[in-house]
């Protein structure tokens, strides 16, 4: 079969590895992690555009989770859409939303890193409407807003760090060496957080590109329907017919 994979660049290595091993023919498009900065509806609009621009194929695969409602409202036009049921990419990297939920529960205040987050995602902003919050660095804020206001904004933008106590590196087994883990360990030290490492899984990536889509873990949106957030364990569901 022929698939079109549209994925967040944060999952670059996991997707490339899985695509290379798939028996199917897959076109791949990686989109900027900056899509998340646009907020749910802004992200959805851009994703929809990419979906609508896709060539004919058997299914369009989305290398995303619900991502702050960035998938909420996406429509399948001529081709089915397939997406994993998960709230965010941490669940994808951990192999299931249950694994993520269990980790979330037993390790409150944890910040996550993976190869993609380390090499591509470090500057992701906390607020979606931060289109003008280009940089969180103190000198940049002072230059732009003056000494007093710059310092105030820096405090506001970095205050969330006080709520975190731990940085967990998710190791998927694709790492070429220990450099990613070391980067994560260094970052934890710089921020004064405990460092931890957990073993991730490539299972959901493999299933996505292999066409192995059990209903419990994947949503298939048939042409004419759309994906909407379900706010329950299913995470996302199909809704109605679209014109």
């Amino acid at each position: 079969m022929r698939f079109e994979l549209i994925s967040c660049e944060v999952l670059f290595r996991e997707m490339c590895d899985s695509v290379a091993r798939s028996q199917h023919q897959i076109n791949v498009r990686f989109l900027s992690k900056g899509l998340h900065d646009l907020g749910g509806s802004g992200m959805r609009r851009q994703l929809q555009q990419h979906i609508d621009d896709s060539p004919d194929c058997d299914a369009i695969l989305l290398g995303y989770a619900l991502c702050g409602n960035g998938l909420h409202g996406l429509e399948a036009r001529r081709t089915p859409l397939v997406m994993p049921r998960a709230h965010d990419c941490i669940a994808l990297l951990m192999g299931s939303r249950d694994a993520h939920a269990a980790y979330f529960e037993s390790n409150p205040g944890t910040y996550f890193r993976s190869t993609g987050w380390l090499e591509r995602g470090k500057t992701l902003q906390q607020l979606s409407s931060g289109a003008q919050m280009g940089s969180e660095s103190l000198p940049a804020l002072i230059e732009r807003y003056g000494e007093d206001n710059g310092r105030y904004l820096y405090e506001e933008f970095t205050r969330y760090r006080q709520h975190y106590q731990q940085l967990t590196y998710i190791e998927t087994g694709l790492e070429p060496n220990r450099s990613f883990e070391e980067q994560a360990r260094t970052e934890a030290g710089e921020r004064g957080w405990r460092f931890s490492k957990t073993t991730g899984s490539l299972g959901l990536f493999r299933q996505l590109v292999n066409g192995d889509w059990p209903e419990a873990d994947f949503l298939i949106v048939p042409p004419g329907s759309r994906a909407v957030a379900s706010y329950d364990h299913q995470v996302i569901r199909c809704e109605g017919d679209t014109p």
Partner: protein
Amino acid sequence: MADLRTLHDAILEGNAKQAAALTQEALAEGLAPLDIIQQAMVPAMDEVGRRFECEEYFVPELLLSARAMKAALEPVRPLLVASGIQPAGRVVIGTVKGDLHDIGKNLVAALLEGGGFEVIDLGADVPAQKFVEAVQSSGAGIVALSALLTVTMPSMKSTIEALDHAGVRSRVKVIVGGAPVTQQFADQIGADGYSENATAAVALARRLSQPA
């Protein structure tokens, strides 16, 4: 003569020190606190809201203007209390259990204060029971819940249920917000109001504070 236009502009431009100094000056010259609020502060914050809606202002500018508004209100507040003027309403605000994000919540809290509300900020990762206790002890009329993760949005529902079980749900209006939250979700969990952004949250709180 105190220059209320300059005070207005100081708030609009996020100049907290100047805003505080100009308010002191205006009070020293005998201007009525309510006149200062109505002629300079409220129009300034309305303009901030307008610029945000038009995407001329973004989160940093909102934070700075809210901070300047707060600084300007500081010397006025005790005078309002002394003359028996009630706040626009009392709001208990917090980010729900499991969610550590607080910029959005802080922004709404600052804008509500700027809008004349008394704000009881419970912080981030707030268990439902803490909201219940805050409502019971403060007599607040509004509970504002924030969530930035779809995975923590169900905590909004359980917080509303906790208010219900404690028998205080009918006493308060619950408003919800945060990047992934939608009107549809707000309706689904039985919230009284939803706001898409921080400036609209103030208008929503005002609307819900009106006696029925």
